């Protein structure tokens, strides 16, 4: 419970100075113990990678690959962070990514070129979010159930559209995004999109009324309601936002894979929830940071990469991820109780 508390907490100060520090200091003010410890974990992982595979891990191409892989799930996780902070859950993110990616890569859609694919991916994502949001906010369905139903239906619809086939993308503009030629100063465009979503997500959460309402609704819905906040509308918007993030992620995935498949986004919901939890988002709502979630994503992606480079199989990766989730939550409970 420290990330919103910026200056030193001397409760007795007679007149705490008005917050006049430059904006960049406010950014680092969020860098509390938890964020620092996440950075520490990431540093240790980089160290392990560098020691075990000195040539291949620290290679520029490999680092570009890690960041690219983190981009798709990272964008989903930013949306998920808002959902969890509001006291909800979105189990349908992986299925929405799949549905968006196949709908946006049908032959008919590809006729409209780059814009058609981007537009369709985003609209399908937002549309699914709308259904989730309406069911949860106005149909008073439990988020777990509503998004579970969406998971099942969206995956089914994605299968129906593709009939299980891989839909190869032929639009050059989209494919170019993942090509080395289009890297900006060595940074892949997909990573730039991820960075932009992260920055915008941070700004929305920390600098806008939308972010404040999200925190209020998640922290104490009854208090939010009695304070005059439209709790239901806010819930609707949050699931729309999650759907939007899924749509963007689907577009990134299309560019990365050069195709759309109904098996895309498999188990993204678990990865996104796990990354947010590791990043310090309280599953019951009201607390969390975008920076923490993004660090959670980077930690997971880095582990996957190091394991792959060391020829360790997915089963070991899964076990390690599970252990990290448990360790992270235990550490957080420890730090929470000492504050």
């Amino acid at each position: 419970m420290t990330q919103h508390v910026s200056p030193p907490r001397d409760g007795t100060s007679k007149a705490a100075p008005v917050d006049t520090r430059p904006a960049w200091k406010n950014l680092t003010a969020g860098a509390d113990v938890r964020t620092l410890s996440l950075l520490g974990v990431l540093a240790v992982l980089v160290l392990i990678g560098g020691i075990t595979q000195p040539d291949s891990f620290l290679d520029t191409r490999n680092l570009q690959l890690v960041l690219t892989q983190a981009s798709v799930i990272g964008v989903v996780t930013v949306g998920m962070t808002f959902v969890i902070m509001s006291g909800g859950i979105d189990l349908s993110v992986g299925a929405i990514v799949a549905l968006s990616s196949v709908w946006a890569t049908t032959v008919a859609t590809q006729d409209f070129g780059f814009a058609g694919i981007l537009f369709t991916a985003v609209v399908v994502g937002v549309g699914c979010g709308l259904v989730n949001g309406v069911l949860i906010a106005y149909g008073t369905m439990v988020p777990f159930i509503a998004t579970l139903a969406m998971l099942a239906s969206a995956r089914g619809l994605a299968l129906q559209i593709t009939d299980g086939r891989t839909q190869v993308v032929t639009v050059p503009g989209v494919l170019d995004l993942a090509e080395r030629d289009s890297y900006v100063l060595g940074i892949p465009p997909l990573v730039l999109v991820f960075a932009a979503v992260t920055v915008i997500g941070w700004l929305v959460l920390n600098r806008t009324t939308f972010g404040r309402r999200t925190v209020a609704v998640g922290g104490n819905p009854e208090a939010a309601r009695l304070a005059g906040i439209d709790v239901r509308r806010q819930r609707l918007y949050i699931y729309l936002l999650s759907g939007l993030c899924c749509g963007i992620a689907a577009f990134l995935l299309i560019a990365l894979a050069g195709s759309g498949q109904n098996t895309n986004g498999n188990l993204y919901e678990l990865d996104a929830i796990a990354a947010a939890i590791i990043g310090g988002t309280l599953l019951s709502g009201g607390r969390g940071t975008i920076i923490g979630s993004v660090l959670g994503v980077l930690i997971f992606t880095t582990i996957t990469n190091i394991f792959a480079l060391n020829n360790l199989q997915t089963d070991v990766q899964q076990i390690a991820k599970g252990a990290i989730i448990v360790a992270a939550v235990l550490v957080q409970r420890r730090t929470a109780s000492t504050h």
Partner: protein
Amino acid sequence: MAPEPPLLSMSGITKSFPGVRALDGVDLDVQAGEVHCLLGQNGAGKSTLIKVLAGAHQPDTGTIRWRGEDVTLRSPIAAMRLGIATIYQELDLVEHLSVAENVHLGHEPTSAGFVVRGRAAKTSTAQLLKRLGHPEVDPGRLVGDLSAAQQQIVSMARALSHDVRLIVMDEPSAALDPDEVDNLFRIVADLTADGVAVVYISHRLEEIRRIGDRVTVLKDGRAVAGGLPAKDTPTRDVVALMTGRNVEYVFPERPAAPGTGEPVLSVRGLTRHGEFAPLDLDVRPGEIVGLAGLVGSGRSEILETVYGARKPNAGQVLVDGRALRPGSVRAAVRAGLGLAPEERKAQALLMLESVTRNVSVSAMSRFSRGGWIDRGAELKAARAATRELSLRPDNPTAPVRTLSGGNQQKAVLARWLLRGCRVLLLDEPTRGVDVGARAELYAVIRRLADEGLAVLLVSSEVPEVLGLADRVLVLREGSVVHEAPARELDEHRVLDLVMEGSPAS
């Protein structure tokens, strides 16, 4: 012959939760075979005390003697082993199990240690139910299909399935109709005849007269009276103990002519079935109107309905003569209403957030453009509001949970001040506020009224209503039984009205 030691003797029990001292040195003696009534307002400490007795809470200090020996009630199971059973108001039954399974939950009759002997459980359950006067309840039925009264009987059967010597009943009559209450009293009489002691919690004084032997009154975490004779203590004395204050408070001076303008808040025929009868009232700018009444008189319900948090069955709330959309908090807030609810932590505060964010939450549009918050302006505005109310510490980034009760209340008031609200609805404004900080809060409320706010105040503490309000409406069971300027009333008169409800003159 030395007198028999009491069955139960609790002494000097204290229990603190973060920010609250729930029990502050409570003594309680219970004799075998008596009905000992526990009285007190909400928040007086009754629930905490019975949870200590049930082993669900561990006291910070104090001793518990059971049949003359010191005991520690480490867990609910430890209490149950001694023969202490508790029937909570929120019944703790498993709805999807049968009556017999619930009664024997945790101590099922078994063969070979683990095979549940269902038939034996059903037989013994049927016997218990018969003893409790409800042979018609089928031990095989699911508890979720039973009525509230039948569920309570099941809860009692569960208590009796142990070798019980003391039963705690937390407002057992609340969910019962009169016939069922008679049956309950018959059961209580049977139990005490067998030498079982009953600790009986109720708000209904007439019940306590009927079945009680002795009364202990709790107030603000202290036993203000222990072991009074239940049948002979005058009602007025009991109520005075529950609501009165030992300390004299300094109330701010009233203006000579408060609230002379047109009413800003008018309530016309507002009704919620089962909670309060059609209600009319007006509050003028600068005026504090108080609603006095006991628990169950509909006080909080009225306030929440005026605020739109509950939907009325009939009637209107008007601000400046314009009717608000019923059942809409947002309409009420937009029209200039603000509520400081009874349960501050659960209903008003964002406990993980700073003072500033708690204060600014209802007025974000004032310092944001297109959803973008100007944090400098926010901080300035929130600080101006908290300074106006002398909120301590004067640190806008302090987490609101670190504040004292009085300062948390000031944070809620500052929220509405910042919003520019014109009608303040205060529900038990000094609940959980330290004795020393109350006078300051009274001064703040009076000053806000003097500056033109209309205030509608609800309190179970009669002296508070009389000292603070300009005009008082006395409530009894959801109806206004009297209305008068506060200076024409005194505490005894109000208590008589609250208890007996003589017609309004």
